[in-house]
């Protein structure tokens, strides 16, 4: 995608992408968003809004916080579409990484942490939240499950606590009663190992 193509041009508030929005690529939709095409943003939300919300909810364990994070993400994409660089990965990866970062920032604030702890028991009992999960991308989920299973237990635990519980590596170290340096290394080596497994999986899928 060329840098110029993403520049805002309100003159082009056209319907040129409207007829076949569901068929055009994510990158093209972002270009359309840069031209203030709100339908393009709606299509991006349709494609990725659920995944963004699911991740935000998984990390924050709070419906209201998750909705706030999701709303913020899409408003930011509307205001700053040029921040997405198609050369560095898919739009979904970009949005999910932004979501994760925002979610952990939110839960690390003291007030949110309290709310989250109050929600802990509810979160555990509502994991059979069918309708949410059944929309999930099965292929990715299964691949991740398998890739996680191949990791040594300590690496898996460190990654899960950091990623899904939003803990810093220092907090993970405290929780697991392990040295910080060890946890840091385990997270990195575990991710690299998953990278290899998932690359093989992607090659097979392709």
């Amino acid at each position, binding site marked *: 995608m060329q840098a110029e193509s993403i520049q805002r041009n309100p003159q082009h*508030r056209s319907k040129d992408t409207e007829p076949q929005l569901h068929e055009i690529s994510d990158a093209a939709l972002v270009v359309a968003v840069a031209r203030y095409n709100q339908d393009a943003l709606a299509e991006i939300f349709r494609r990725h809004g659920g995944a963004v919300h699911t991740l935000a909810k998984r990390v924050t364990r709070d419906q209201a916080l998750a909705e706030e994070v999701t709303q913020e993400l899409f408003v930011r994409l509307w205001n700053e579409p040029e921040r997405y660089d198609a050369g*560095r990965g898919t739009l979904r990866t970009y949005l999910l990484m932004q979501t994760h970062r925002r979610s952990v920032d939110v839960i690390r604030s003291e007030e949110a942490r309290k709310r989250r702890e109050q929600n802990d028991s509810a979160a555990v009992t509502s994991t059979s939240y069918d309708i949410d*999960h059944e929309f999930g991308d099965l292929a990715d989920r299964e691949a991740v499950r398998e890739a996680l299973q191949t990791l040594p237990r300590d690496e898996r635990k460190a990654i899960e606590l950091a990623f899904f519980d939003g803990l810093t590596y220092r907090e993970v170290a405290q929780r697991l009663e392990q040295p910080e340096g060890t946890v840091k290394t385990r997270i990195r080596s575990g991710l690299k190992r998953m990278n290899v497994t998932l690359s093989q999986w992607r090659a097979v899928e392709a």
Partner: protein
Amino acid sequence: MERPNPTEQMQHREAEELLGAYIIDAVDPEERAAIEAHLGLCVTCRGEVDALRSTVGIIANEGGPAPAGLWERIEEEINEGGDTVTYRPPQRSRLRIPTIIASTALAVAAALTLIFGIEIHSLHSQVTELSTQVTTSATRAIATAALLQPGAKRFALDSPQGHAVGSVVALPSGEVVLTSFLMHPLKASSTYQVWAIVDEKPISLGLLGNRPSISVFHTGGRQAFEFAITIEPAHGVAQPTGAPVATAAII
């Protein structure tokens, strides 16, 4: 331009050790800033972060539906709140209509037909491409509304390994909403094809394309208690050529 400030720059080794924690946001804000400063200078570390990015994207990707009404709130914020109907250009209004209808629980199929001009396919249209792929986020709200219809029956759509991959909502009217089929995209030369099992025989309900989403189809008034999805060549086939990748049956 890229001259490091030795007093502030995080040492390469220190930064490198933190890259895993950094990419999953498990570092403190100060560390994050220091690593990002280092990434601006270090090709090696940037390469490692780039390589891990898609892996983290996959770990983060659990799919899932967006809550009803969330898009409308985003739309409202984008339009700076207030009376969004007044300020919204006409081209946007079509996004709201289906949601209003969905929220008042009008008949799902009627809503789809009226608003999107969607042709509801029947058993007669053996391998016709379904034209019911969602075109706006609001359709998802309609799919959710389908679940709320009186007499709606939901079937779990399972992979052969027994993992839930989606669901099928069958309405008493014969409309069937495949509410949550979000499988891995296929190559352009392939399609997912959906079958109703009637009298133990698979009857094609239509093609879902290679990137399926929410779809609506019609069983033509015949009772189907089982559904199956197979991967087929893009033009579709009259009979399944392989084992189903997902099945749904009355529980």
